[in-house]
């Protein structure tokens, strides 16, 4: 059967948290949508681990390599002694290499953040504007059609003001 979803909207964090606890007890995985950050685990949700820290390391390595090649390459391509300094001068190379390393780390970190956040996401899917506008909290469950009925019941029992299906 095709996977469908149900979104329960709550006006209070306590109600959403109790609905989350009930869903967890029932063994149902759910996602929480909020307009502002809450402490991790506040709704009893389980967040899969991320690998964000790999990105800045890879980026730093790439930036370092490019910068070293650039600085060494330009100095060797135009081997003019300036100010009595050697043609391949390590301190100036170190400065530009440092900047390149940091730039690579920053660029890859941003890419990593977007990637791990699963962005860009072309379609919003099940969502409601009042999550950001009114501070409502959305509890989103995906599953087969047969699962959604009981889920909807749990959500309503714990104070969902509106249910959306998609």
């Amino acid at each position: 059967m095709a996977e469908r979803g149900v979104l329960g909207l709550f006006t209070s964090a306590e109600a959403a948290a109790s609905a989350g606890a009930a869903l967890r007890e029932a063994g149902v995985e759910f996602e929480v949508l909020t307009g502002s950050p809450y402490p991790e685990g506040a709704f009893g949700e389980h967040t899969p681990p991320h690998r964000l820290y790999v990105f800045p390391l890879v980026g730093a390595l790439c930036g370092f390599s490019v910068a070293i090649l650039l600085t060494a390459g330009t100095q060797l391509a135009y081997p003019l002694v300036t100010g009595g300094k050697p043609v391949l001068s390590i301190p100036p190379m170190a400065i530009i290499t440092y900047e390149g390393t940091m730039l690579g780390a920053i660029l890859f970190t941003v890419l990593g953040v977007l990637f791990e956040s699963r962005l860009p996401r072309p379609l919003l899917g099940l969502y409601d504007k009042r999550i950001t506008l009114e501070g409502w909290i959305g509890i989103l469950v995906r599953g087969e059609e047969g699962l959604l009925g009981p889920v909807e019941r749990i959500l309503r029992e714990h104070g969902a003001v509106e249910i959306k299906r998609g």
Partner: protein
Amino acid sequence: MQERRDLSDRQINRDLLWPVLYTPLWFWVAVLALGLVVSAGAGAAAWWMNKGPGVAGLNRPIMWGHLIVTFVFWVGISHAGVMLSAILRLTQAEWRRPMVRAAEVLTVFSLATAALFPLLHSGRPWRTLYWVFPYDFSRGIWPNVRSPLVWDPSAIFTYLTGSALFVFVTLLPDLAALRDRTTGIPHRIYSLLALGWRGTPRQWRLQALAGILLSALILPVFVSVHSIVSWDFGMAVSVEGWHATVFAPYFVIGAVHSGVAAVVTLMALMRWLFRWEDYIRSEHFDAIGRLLIVVATAWFFFFALEFLFGLYLREPQEVALRQAQVFEWPYNLLMILFLLTAYFIPVPLWLFRKVRRNVALMFWTSVLVNVGMWLERFLIIVPGLARKQIFTFEWSVYRPSPIEILMVTASFALVALGILVFAKVFPLVPVNEAKEGQVLKAEIRVGRRTVPAIVREQ
């Protein structure tokens, strides 16, 4: 003392998004006025490019004047963003919330403005491409990696890119709020920019990590940028007063001093113009004022080191330079003004809580600091160059031309215009930070007193 407010999400959205959604009359007046000044500056720059740098008051040996002073000044201001945003994020200071984005945006626009000055100063900006871009352009000549003037573009480019990306990444949740709030074409544009943000715990967790990780990465870059700019002067042996080992940290701490003061100026303007009294409160000015005392005193320590050790070897040229700076017209007057405005007027005032909590006084003292810090850069650059050669017939006096003054004035208008236009398109106070502040607000009862508290993840 804290004056926290209880604010709903709806109220926060309304208060912080209104400059984006509605346009008051003063906005158009300000844009027009600033636009006129910027246009005049652009005209002056065009005149400069057409007639050559001779239209400036520059002459041997003072080949760097107002434009380079202003370049260093704006690079300094750009350090505000990282100082406040990054360090306060890493230390989880609650009082950072209303000012982080404004500081980051100030960084981006002041840095972009700063980058214009060396380009314009060259007289033929297109030629600078040959000097810094790593390609030989069929001449067999490559950039001189050993020159600090080539280190500059690498640092400024890295910092500008990093800061701009930092602003964008932390803007995502607010773009989502704008997407949900708007209709029609604005809705489509914000939808595109929001990248499909929905506010899942994973996305919020990564936002927090992004803030910490990018802060930790940008902090070393911020230190390096102004150090590299300082080495434009510090590496030169031939100019008295420049070849000092302390230049890098001295410039960096000076940048922090002027940058944080600029953020205070910006915060006061935001509070007045956008009526954000509930978000930018006296307690924020109090906290930033205390930070400024520490930063200003650290800066003064480095200034004392630079001056004292300038005289350490008692070299005649160095002594002559310091005598010129302290005793000779016009530098003596500028030195007095600089010391008074950069430290001896604002810092004693900031020691008083009543002053720190007075928005108007904080505004004016912060403006004074930046007047002083502009003069500081002038006093580092121009007297040293004026005394560059040992032959006294080479000593000269610098008188800035109207073209230079116009370009410098236009730079202030450009930064202001940039921030104003940004405020029209994106919220200048992070909406999600304000909402998070409400979520994490708590209280502890101690006897009969209720102590404000913050919730932290365990």
